[in-house]
């Protein structure tokens, strides 16, 4: 936990009670991210090894990729990183309302990115006939970007848990309500990135809205109900125990989210852009 002087000022960058001067939670996350670098380094290396020396019969990336959509996804993930930084900035100043808004915004942008990935994978499999097992390129590409997508999804889940935590009442209790709130978050954002965003992208690319409604009416209705319930759960219910003292927790989630963004910066350049040279 960050140091807390008797006068109430919280130093969010240093903890004088630890031997390193760094809050233990922050040190743990940096150590974890350093290890995750090696994880993604191995996956990116594997993809690049097979791109530099492709076996015969491999898929041709430029005939498969949709660089406009991927560029848009990259921009969205960058903006989500901005919102996450603003969430941390807000909670370090004790602004709970702004923190909640920025956390929701980060999750929303993360779901747009995930929805783009879902659409991309569906399109590559069904229209371009590139699967996980029918080419080396498919194997390395889906493993790498799928692992990254899983990291983003876990990040959205963590952000959702942090968002729900900001509503925990100061006088205790509220456990069932918090679980229900988390369920509503999960349903809403799950529907968003599995059906709503990919469906919206298909509509932009020419699918009639009627077809989308016929295919995904029930999930979209469930998602809409989840969204409405979030307005109900999000109303002010009195004093909460979450505040500036919890800034280290938001910052920790922020570190994970920014890491996911920087991995995508590398993936976008190495996997997508370099193919167009």
């Amino acid at each position, binding site marked *: 936990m960050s140091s807390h002087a008797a006068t109430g*000022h919280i130093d969010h960058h240093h903890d004088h009670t630890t031997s390193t001067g760094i809050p233990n939670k922050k040190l743990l996350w940096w150590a974890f991210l350093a290890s*995750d670098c090696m994880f993604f380094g191995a996956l990116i290396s594997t993809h690049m*090894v097979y791109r530099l020396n492709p076996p015969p019969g491999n898929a041709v990336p430029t005939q498969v990729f949709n660089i406009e959509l991927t560029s848009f996804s990259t921009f969205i993930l960058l903006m989500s990183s901005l919102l996450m930084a603003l969430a941390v900035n807000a909670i370090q100043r004790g602004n709970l309302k702004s923190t909640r808004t920025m956390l929701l915004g980060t999750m929303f942008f993360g779901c747009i990115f995930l929805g783009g990935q879902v659409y991309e994978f569906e399109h590559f499999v069904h229209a371009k006939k590139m699967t996980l097992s029918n080419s080396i390129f498919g194997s390395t590409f889906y493993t790498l970007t799928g692992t990254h997508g899983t990291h983003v999804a876990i990040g959205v889940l963590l952000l959702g848990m942090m968002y729900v935590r900001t509503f925990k009442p100061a006088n205790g209790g509220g456990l069932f309500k918090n679980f229900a709130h988390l369920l509503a978050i999960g349903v809403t954002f799950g529907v968003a990135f599995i059906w709503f965003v990919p469906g919206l992208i298909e509509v932009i690319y020419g699918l009639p809205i009627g077809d989308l409604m016929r295919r995904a009416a029930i999930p979209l209705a469930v998602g809409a109900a989840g969204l409405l319930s979030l307005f109900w759960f999000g109303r002010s219910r009195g004093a909460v125990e979450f505040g500036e003292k919890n800034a280290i927790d938001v910052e920790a989630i922020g570190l994970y989210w920014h890491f996911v963004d920087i991995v995508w910066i590398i993936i976008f350049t190495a996997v997508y852009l370099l193919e167009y040279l």
Partner: protein
Amino acid sequence: MSAPATAPAAAGHHEPSKFHFYIQVAMILSVVTGIEVVLVYLPLAKWFVVTTLLVLSAGKFMAVIFYFMHLRWDKVFCTILFFIGLVLAGGTMWALLHIFGADASKPLSAAALELARLAVA
């Protein structure tokens, strides 16, 4: 845990907000991303495009870790810790690319694969 007597004592003081600074960094990152996308379509030398893309990506990477991830304002040990992992990952990538770039590691062409199959049969 109680803080030692030497801890800073500014009652109710918050450090200046970095709101506008973060917005500026994000705008710069967006512009750089746009430049990267346009660059691959320009009729320039391949070595120049690759180098520029790598430099721009590295710049974006550093901007996110030092500004959004706060390394710029945290203790230097956090930077060292992260860079240990980064250097190990980079070294592993370099080693793998060199190992699998050696002639003996390269996949056979379709014709050579067929010849090898016939030889075994």
